[in-house]
């Protein structure tokens, strides 16, 4: 999170020209052995507490080559960026292909015997907040506009500045934007808000289609 402009290359909802979906029959869990290792390293490093899941999403989505990368390449590149930013892996380590510089202390280490319990616990994001619930099911709400390069956010571009209806409430959750920026969990009320495709994509959109997003309180205002 330095002064450089934040560019999110992963916000793809509603973009045109990206082609058709190509399902793979009988798709295997992994397409190469390195994908297994990349998955496991990502989960094991996530469990150390070196960064939050929101910081890892921010690291992944800022990669300029994002659209040309496979998903495990995205994960690997994001992890390398997180490790480098924190000095957990240095340029000298990478150049040598071995640990050259001393390790830095981390909050936790995931041991093999603790894997089942750690996965079963997961990372629940429900929290208490002293703030009152501002919206209820059925309320009409409008999403905020945001500058293009605001930093990590979970309000996609296609749904900014749009009017929809609250359809679910989820209590308060860790606010992803704050967690990604390293400024704490700052929990907020979380809502599911549904929009007509017409309101999102214009009058030619399919009138039978609606789309919801999960939106934190600060993304919303009364409509």
């Amino acid at each position, binding site marked *: 999170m330095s002064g450089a402009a934040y560019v999110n290359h*992963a*916000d*793809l*909802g*509603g973009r045109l020209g*990206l*082609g*058709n*979906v*190509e*399902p*793979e029959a009988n*798709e295997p*869990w*992994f397409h190469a*052995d*390195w994908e297994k*290792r*990349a*998955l*496991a*390293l990502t*989960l*094991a490093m996530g469990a*150390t507490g070196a960064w939050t899941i929101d910081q890892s999403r921010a690291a992944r*989505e800022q990669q300029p080559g994002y659209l040309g990368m496979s998903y495990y*390449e995205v994960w*690997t590149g994001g*992890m390398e960026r997180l490790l480098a930013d924190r000095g957990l*892996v240095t340029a000298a380590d990478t150049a040598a292909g*071995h*640990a050259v510089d001393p*390790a830095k202390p981390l909050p936790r*280490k*995931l041991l*093999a015997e603790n*894997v089942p319990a750690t*996965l079963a*616990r*997961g*990372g*629940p*994001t*429900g929290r208490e907040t002293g703030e009152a619930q501002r919206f209820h099911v059925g309320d009409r709400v409008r999403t905020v506009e945001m500058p293009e390069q605001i930093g990590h956010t979970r309000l996609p571009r*296609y749904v900014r500045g749009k009017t929809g209806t609250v359809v*679910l409430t989820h209590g308060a*959750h*860790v606010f*992803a934007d704050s967690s990604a920026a390293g400024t704490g969990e700052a929990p907020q009320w979380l809502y*599911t808000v549904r929009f007509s495709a017409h309101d999102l994509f214009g009058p030619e959109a*399919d009138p*039978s*289609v*609606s*789309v*919801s*997003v*999960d*939106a*934190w309180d600060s993304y919303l205002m009364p409509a």
Partner: protein
Amino acid sequence: MHDDHHHHDHDHDHDHSELSPMDARVRALETILVEKGYVDPAALDVLIETYETKVGPHNGARVVAKAWADPAYHARLLKDATSAIGELGFVGRQGEHMVAVENTSGTHNMVVCTLCSCYPWPVLGLPPVWYKSAPYRAKAVRDPRGVLADFGVTLPAGKEIKVWDSTAEVRYLVLPERPAGTEGWDEARLATLVTRDSMIGTGLASAPEAVA
């Protein structure tokens, strides 16, 4: 590098003495992270084994089949999916906050993550490549009928389609419509009709004659 290569006992033989760039890159990273003491190599093996052999859409299929067969469970699933799914032992990472959305004669549901690859791991396992791909993430919210066509699925013209974009830590499981002609089937038999794609909303449950 070649010595390191032979420490890994997978099927690469003399025909594959060159590592792919990603293979080399991830191996070097693993070496560094293990040498630094940040990760336990045995934990990596357990993680891989878990997601290769234990977790997958067979879990979600049990949830759906039980909801079809057991009205009380069906009600619990729609009221508090995290707890109802947890009754079957499917809990934890990427399923901490579950919501089940039910397909009916009038409504079809489809789940996407336009910002990354959020997916309900405890019930469906790791997401397929297409779910994480740019085309699906771009198209699902703008043209879900077009996505269904890519999967060879056509819905009645007037049927309402609700797309759920998982932008926070809530994870959605589609409860597909129970196929006709399955009256009296027990849960185990019903579960054979429940495909992964039917629980994402890019497919429908299989017809009974398709699995007979």
